[in-house]
């Protein structure tokens, strides 16, 4: 039986959830890359182009680009299109503030290369853990 993978990180915005992972190998600029009206990834250079971030555990290395990005996260939440949680390798202020005002659980210092799109993951910000669930646990 394969070893279950539990990743330890640093909790930033409190919360817990279990959902499907969507993993971008590249940094995300919420302004421009994500459409706040649909939750879809519209930046063609991203490996997750065309995917929808809604209700996913969105994993990406870090944010970049415009500081208006925080409000896009708030827009997504208001439109009920937000990710269930955000998992970063390194948190940056644009994403942190967005997660605070949009109230999206967030954790960083996670090696996101361990997580694959489509896997079901459990995020527990209080303990600072991201658990990749095996199929029979889902």
């Amino acid at each position: 039986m394969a070893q279950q993978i539990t990743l330890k990180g640093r909790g930033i915005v409190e919360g817990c959830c279990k959902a499907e992972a969507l993993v971008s190998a590249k940094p995300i600029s919420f302004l421009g890359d994500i459409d706040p009206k649909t939750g879809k990834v519209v930046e063609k250079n991203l490996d997750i182009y065309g995917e929808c971030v809604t209700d996913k555990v969105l994993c990406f290395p870090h944010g970049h680009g415009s500081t208006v990005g925080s409000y896009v996260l708030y827009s997504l939440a208001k439109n009920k299109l937000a990710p269930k949680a955000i998992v970063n390798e390194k948190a940056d202020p644009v994403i942190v503030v967005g997660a605070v005002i949009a109230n999206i659980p967030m954790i960083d210092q996670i090696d996101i290369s361990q997580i694959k799109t489509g896997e079901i993951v459990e995020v527990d910000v209080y303990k600072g853990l991201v658990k990749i669930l095996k199929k029979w646990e889902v």
Partner: protein
Amino acid sequence: MYLTKEEERIYDGELGWAKQVCMKILVKLGELFDAERLIPIDSAHISGVSYKTLGEAPTDFLEALAKANEKTKVEATLNPQSFDPEYLRKRLPKQLLQKQLDILQIFERMGFKQSYTCTPYYIRKPEKNSHLAWAESSAVVYANSVLGAWTNREGGPSALAAAIIGKTPDYGVHKAINRKPNILVEVDSPIKEEVEYGALGISLGKILKDKIPIIRGVGNTSGENLKHLGAALASAGMTNLFHYKDSELKGETLEKISVEANDIRKAIEELTTAPKQKPDLVFVGCPHCSLKEIREIANVVGGKKVRDNTEFWVCTSCHVKEKAKSYVQKIEASGAKVITDTCAVVTWTDKLGIETIMTNSAKTAHYAPTLNKANTILAPLKECLKTALKE
């Protein structure tokens, strides 16, 4: 994090919801980055003013703050919005204008200055070593690197929170130790044009992550070229400060990378996506033009006229436009528009039927394919002017 009694009372909500939410933003950021305390700021600059980039939802957040009767505690300027007072008001749908005016009215109620520019430093230059809480990544890089003021790269809401509380958490580049260069960038061939500075910024931004570079080989250039370099650096990466004076290199051994002429040429090519070389819009003024840039444009325009079926926009702040009156007259006599308070990126060029944008701004070329659904041509100012104007 240490909070004074007064700060604690705000955090606990004793002074109301709005101040509490603002304080929470500041404290959360402070804790994340191991700040020990909050420090007073001289000014704040807010991004996220344009209705096009803001959309619907944040209006509610801003409205709630304004309703709670919150006012700015320090001088606080605003980034560009999506309309200018004249041209775009006539050409874009009325309902968009109304949405934008609603947002501006909320900011006005909170006491923000109606500056609508990404270059607030042309209105009032922050003092060296003063602490600021600025959003708008290009202005942050410029303030830190060229003006020697100290500001982290705030998000729209964190700058808003800082404007209302009058403080910012003491972390990042507010501390001298975090301002030292940690990577040496050698630019192997001399670069002159603003597009080369911009292209250098885009390619460096992608590889530097959050490192602080000292860039060798650009020391004697103009503030405007450094503005283009910083704007591009910030759009493509997380950098908020660069050094460019050799005197700042104090004999430390730093990791070293070099950039060759070929890298810059390749970056310029990649920022040009247009299959055709005939733009619908020639756009100069990202970041907003300085007085010097407006003068330069006016001198080249001379008595020439803008080509048929081509728009030519020069974007700046109303503050600079007012100071540049005689140059503005000359530029507008050609059929060009000197547009204030907004720019091509934060307005709806697609609704004006613009499919191809030619610009001298690497930042615009980087953003326009997604934010304007436009193809781009990145070219130096003199080529932009040649394309925009009849012989």
